[in-house]
């Protein structure tokens, strides 16, 4: 956001847009891929959290538990079928996250490429 500068927002304000309108119609579209990417990575990080939850909030089942901790609990109870089922689910979610992340990366790169191509073309003509 810092490298993008505030010119777009200033332009919106001189055109009479308020703070929210500027954010929703100008700032957010400019940063949407970055925000989405951040959300996906953050989500992946939260799903896989093990150590911090285990130490700080003690993995109480149904209250302060995450999937990896749940797998540990199940495994310790010799319920390996359930443990492996949840583990498979976690692996599946990881794959979905990976696909989403690649998709966002690809979209963002395409947008950037278009901008760059436009700039070069604009510079020449």
């Amino acid at each position, binding site marked *: 956001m810092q490298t993008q500068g505030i010119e777009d927002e200033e332009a919106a304000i001189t*055109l009479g847009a308020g703070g929210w309108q500027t954010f929703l119609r100008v700032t957010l579209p400019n940063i949407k891929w970055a925000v989405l990417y951040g959300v996906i990575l953050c989500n992946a990080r939260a799903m896989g959290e093990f150590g911090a939850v285990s130490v700080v909030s003690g993995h109480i089942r149904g209250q302060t538990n995450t999937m990896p901790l749940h797998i540990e609990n199940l495994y310790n109870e010799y319920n390996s079928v359930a443990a492996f089922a949840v583990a498979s689910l976690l692996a599946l979610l990881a794959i979905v996250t990976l696909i989403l992340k690649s998709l966002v990366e690809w979209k963002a790169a395409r947008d950037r490429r278009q901008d760059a191509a436009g700039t070069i073309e604009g510079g020449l003509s």
Partner: protein
Amino acid sequence: MSIEVANISKTFGRFAALKNVSLRVSSGELVALLGPSGSGKTTLLRIVAGLEMADPGSGPVQFHDQDVGDRHARHRRVGFVFQHYALFKHMTVFNNVAFGLTVRPRRSRPSRQAIRRKVSDLLRLVQLENLANRYPSQLSGGQRQRVALARALAVEPEVLLLDEPFGALDARVRQELRHWLRRLHDEIHVTSLFVTHDQEEALEVADQVVVMNEGRIEQVGTPEQVFHQPANEFVLNFLGHVNVFHGRVQQDRAVFGSLAVDMPSSQAAEGRQARLVVRPYDLEVSSSPAGADSLRATLVRIQSAGPIVKLELRTEDGQLVQVEVSHERSKSLNLHQDDIVYVRPKQSRVYVDDYTI
């Protein structure tokens, strides 16, 4: 709608960008703020737009004799055009231009049809009516800047402010666009203030030129006034290329090598450093010494491709001097490289520290 600012100062940290600047722009005029980078011209423009606040203690910013100093940029009704266009790149040209109308509160927002009509009128005005569905990245630089201008005009601004509008364009497009801007201004007559560091652009387009330097206004005048009657050495220096000769004041004369200029009643300035400033076309070249007041020089380079012939001379004390003569004059002198010629200023100005004639 006139613009008036009085005693505006602005400091960024310890850097004083503007020092007590006052300026009045009459209604309907196209005024250029001209100066080198760091002279405070963009800061002044941004203060007028309300994007920057003047230091406390500064005078008011007035539009049409109304103080708008405490009005937020959003409510000042200014059209602002940025050097790098600042177009919304995720919107089409149409939506960019319509933006200022669609963000209005519902009760003052024009109907969909009215917006459509207004936008297509504006796109016709900037000659882009068939590009309404393109995205900014699919336009050339000149087209983008015209979209930015249409977008600024859509909100029917009381004043139009342009920050180096042609700065990012190449030379030919820039020339076309500034002629176009002049015609457009003659058509719509909105009070306009534009910032530029290109003196040619300012002189060619503006009704009034404001020359700025180091946070101060050096001179305000028509292009003719600032060009022919520069208020001081800075203005003369900044408006086009000049030759500067260094010398000293001796007995009522400023002496620059074998050149001397009379300086009546200059006793007070005796012995001081003097500078003789001459524009390249105000120097006369001849093949024989014409009177005592001429400098002997060697012709280093002749550049005759263009409307005038540019000569580069080296004086005996090694200074390079640029001279411009007509093709006829150049032919009649039959000049060749390494010739010895004599130059004499037809018109010049002498500046002595704290003293001017």
